[in-house]
């Protein structure tokens, strides 16, 4: 292992009040180290706040450890970034660990990693300082098309899409992390085999989202377990730019399972998410057109059990068409059910009784203090049902997640 002290003390002394050229020097120095690092190298970042003006990138490397002096001790600030969208970008690599540092105020995503096998984030914070705003970058930590992803003891604050976002990836663990003041706290999208546990997602628009979207390279996500998380007070007004799917998530969402199969949500505290503690919905609810003929817009094989539900006695928090729907059509008033299912079925998966065959069933096991509604959305919400009996089954999910 080779140690590369990335910034000399000389550079450190000018950090407090750096003229533009010094800033450019630091940028170049850091970038040069990332380019010339040999496989197996350790790149050490000393404590301090480093002002950076463009994306730092690591490409085509194996077994690199990028280590700061600690979260909130080594701060890479991209305030006023002029070039590149991300803070740090890692691509086409394997066995990469990023730990003990903070990335602030990037124009786009905080840290994006693409095509990496073995990517670990530990004690990394990504934040947008100041009040949450649609001008903030989309994703905090953003592994996409990666395998063996570990996010452990990280924090994401202020993302205008998702704080901790894993997209089109495989074998994922997200644990011991905190997400707040994001539109989505934690999101698993079009990804396979993920375990999300012991996280705290609070004061986001939506706490934890499990999505499957059309028109992507990796289409079929699933085998996602969300357990032992504390998902509370996710009532923050949605501040995502409107064109994004996540802009449709109503404020007050605890957990949302959108069009994904093989999802288990268990043993979570789901408190004071005042619109939908847990929503299980098809892609039709987004009202986006579907042109991808291979895409399955229906959630199936979902199992919700062992969760503890609480909510304040207030109206549905979401705005827009969804808010109108709850206010004027569904008229739950201040007693919005904790678990909401849109009830739209794929006819190909149903048995003679018109319900899903056992391998596709939505199961709602014993939860503490849960109320329920099937919205009958496929039938213009005509026969809203609060009967949980048809969902009395168990559907345990097993993942092959190997990331440690």
């Amino acid at each position, binding site marked *: 292992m080779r140690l590369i002290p990335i910034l000399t003390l000389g550079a450190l002394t000018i950090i407090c009040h750096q003229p533009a050229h010094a800033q450019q020097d630091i940028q170049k120095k850091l*970038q040069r180290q990332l*380019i010339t690092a040999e496989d197996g190298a350790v790149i050490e970042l000393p404590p301090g706040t480093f002002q950076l003006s463009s994306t730092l990138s690591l490409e085509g490397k194996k077994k690199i450890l990028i280590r700061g002096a600690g979260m909130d001790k080594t701060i890479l600030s991209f305030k006023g970034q*002029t*070039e*590149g969208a991300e803070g740090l970008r890692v691509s086409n690599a394997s066995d990469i660990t990023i730990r003990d540092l903070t990335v602030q105020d990037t124009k786009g995503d905080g840290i994006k990693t693409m095509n990496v096998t073995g990517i670990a984030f530990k004690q990394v914070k990504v934040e947008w300082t100041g009040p949450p705003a649609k001008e*903030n970058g989309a994703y905090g930590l953003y592994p996409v098309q990666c395998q063996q992803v570990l996010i452990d003891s990280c924090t994401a604050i202020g993302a205008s899409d998702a704080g901790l976002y894993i997209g089109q990836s495989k074998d994922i663990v997200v644990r011991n992390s905190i997400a707040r003041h994001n539109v989505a706290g934690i999101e698993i999208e079009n990804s396979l085999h993920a375990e999300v546990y012991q996280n705290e997602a609070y004061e986001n628009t939506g706490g934890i989202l499990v999505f499957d979207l059309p028109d992507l390279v990796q289409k079929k996500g699933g085998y996602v377990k969300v357990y032992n998380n504390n998902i509370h007070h996710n009532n923050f007004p949605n501040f995502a*730019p*409107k*064109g*994004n799917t996540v802009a449709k998530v109503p404020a007050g969402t605890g957990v949302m399972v959108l069009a994904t199969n093989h999802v288990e949500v268990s043993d979570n505290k789901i408190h004071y998410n005042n619109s939908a503690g847990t929503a299980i919905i098809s892609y039709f609810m987004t009202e986006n057109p579907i042109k991808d003929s291979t895409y399955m817009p229906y959630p199936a094989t979902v199992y919700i059990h062992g969760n503890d539900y609480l909510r304040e006695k207030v109206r549905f928090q979401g705005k827009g068409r969804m808010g109108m729907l709850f206010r004027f059509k569904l008229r739950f008033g201040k007693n919005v059910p904790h678990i909401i299912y849109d009830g739209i079925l794929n006819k190909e998966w149903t048995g003679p009784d018109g319900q899903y065959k056992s391998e596709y069933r939505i199961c709602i096991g014993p939860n503490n203090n849960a109320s329920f509604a099937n919205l009958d959305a496929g039938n213009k919400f005509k026969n809203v049902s609060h009967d949980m009996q048809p969902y009395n089954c168990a559907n345990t999910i097993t993942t092959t997640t190997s990331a440690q």
Partner: protein
Amino acid sequence: MSMIRYIIYGLLCAGLLTALLASGRHTQRAYAPKETLSEYGFFKGNMAEQVPVAGIMPYQLNTPLFSDYSEKLRFIQLPPDSVITYDPLNVMYIPIGATLIKTFYYPQDMRHPEKGRRLMETRLLVHTPGGWNAWTYIWNEEQTEAYLEVAGDRKPVRFTDHNGRNVAFDYIIPNVNQCKGCHNTNEVLMPIGPTARQLNGDFPYTSGRENQLQHWIKAGILQGLTDASQAPRAPVWNDPASGSLEDRARTWLEINCAHCHKPEGPAKTSGLFLNINEHDPTKMGILKTPVAAGRGAANLQYDIVPGHPEKSILVYRMESTDPGIMMPELSRKLTHKEGLELVKQWIKAMK
């Protein structure tokens, strides 16, 4: 006895291995980047005049990538007695040992090129036995030499544009990782420009104007094609006589976007493919919802809304110069107003 034989064999093998390794190292060293551009000996006389030595061929593309209004000089150097292999669709096969040379410069006044120019950087794509390598050389203020820089840089630039307006901005020189940000096919570094379509056009050679592919065939450096008129031809984006509005707009999008936005490119995660041979309307962006565009999506719903450039995310991102919104992501500080106008017209005319 047999023991001694084994020892002798062992020694022989070790010797052979050492020799092989040494020769391997030697080849690697032969392809290591040089510190200065002049060491390559690509140009004769005053290097800033960019007159290539014999054996180095200048070329141009029908519709080039927009690079903040910089102008570019392109050259190719092939190893002796080697040839390029024709491909009607993809980048043509260029043999190992070849170098693509591209110099970026700004005329002081685009209306009066004779007033002089400032060379910014010369980028090399070198085809080594281990694959393509990208290196950037930054020109000094005196315009006497260009120096290798792997970490990129930024230089203030001023010029007068075609309309007589003064433009001042920071020109960005990419770092080597950023080179691969664009030159990337399935994570392998590859050239982008030299396709038959892009080269199928005239070049003002010192010997006179001639079709480039025909010139290469005559020079014996292109195999697999005997007649340039058989090859496909990309239109010139700003010459309506060279192609329809759609062809020109899509060719512009291909050269500016499809190096990432293709099924084998870094932006495949978006599902938006702007390569010319994509025919699925959704994949081309028509009424396609964005995936991870963040604020790049603004308040718009679709990448392309037929008839409505003002409602199309594609146009919004081409127009922006905000690093969190704009496309392409790299090496652009200015908006290509004319290219933007072309794409807007195409979307406007779309039914």
